[in-house]
């Protein structure tokens, strides 16, 4: 049991060290958040645009009478 807690403690210390980024955490993590957030947002927006364009095209076709 003692062994387990020691290992746990070591692990948490490593994680803390990783997340602190030698004290540059307030700069490194926001930069990654902005970059990855932008990738996700633009991906979501592109999918939505395609869905909207399909929806609108379907409406146009339906207005003409023949249903796809």
């Amino acid at each position, binding site marked *: 049991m003692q062994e387990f807690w020691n290992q746990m403690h070591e692990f948490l210390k490593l994680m803390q060290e*990783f997340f602190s980024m030698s004290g540059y955490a307030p700069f490194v993590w926001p930069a990654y958040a902005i970059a990855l957030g932008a990738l996700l947002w*633009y*991906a979501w927006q592109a999918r939505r645009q395609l869905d909207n364009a*399909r929806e609108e095209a379907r409406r146009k*076709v339906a207005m003409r009478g023949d249903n796809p």
Partner: protein
Amino acid sequence: MSWAWFHRFGSPPYFYWVAGKIAPWFGWPSLVLLLIGLYGGLVLAPVDYFQSDAYRIIYVHVPASWLALLTYSTMAISAAIGLIWRIKIAHAVAVACAGVGAGFTIVSLATGMIWGKPTWGAWWAWDPRIVSQLFLLFFFAGYTGLRAAIDDTDRADRASAVLAIVGIVNVPIVRYSVDWWNSLHQAPSVMRADGPTISWSMLWPLLTMALAYTFYFGWIMLVRARAEVLRRDRGSNWVREALTNEAAGARS
């Protein structure tokens, strides 16, 4: 040389179909490369002797900056092809580039500012590299703004294409700004005649991230261009057929 393939791509139904087929071949590799690159950059790459862990911002800053230039070049060349050969697909591709290119440029500037504070000691400097990158953003915004101001799609295509072509002159200025003038921004670490000045253990995650971003651009450009093509040709016969086929494909 036969130009048949070139004209085939100019046909909206063919483009819509082929773009839908190849888009996943860009999307999924991009995701895999991104995960490898992030792990490599954040965990495997060693700290830098000078900037310690602050340098890790390079793994999101540099790919975004490269992609901003790649996206602008793609947009301007597509717009020029559209203008000269009167190919509508080329204009649709240029439109697809504009929005996401502005995004890459903003990410490049924002992550650059965040990097500048702990290393240079300032969020912003009126440095030639930074100012020329800001101009790139203005050209992207100008392209989108000009299109929004013109209702007729054909006229918007032509007017915005001229703006995109004018702005291509800024691309080499961004790239060579750090060589031509004294600047606060560092000189290139990777794309240089005498080879990279960055250790391989730090370079491979950077190249992986750059490749991930490039595939991401390929994917998002195809998806956005498909949406743009549908929007332009809504109500046409080929769109009706394409949608019917898609609906049949979804049912089976």
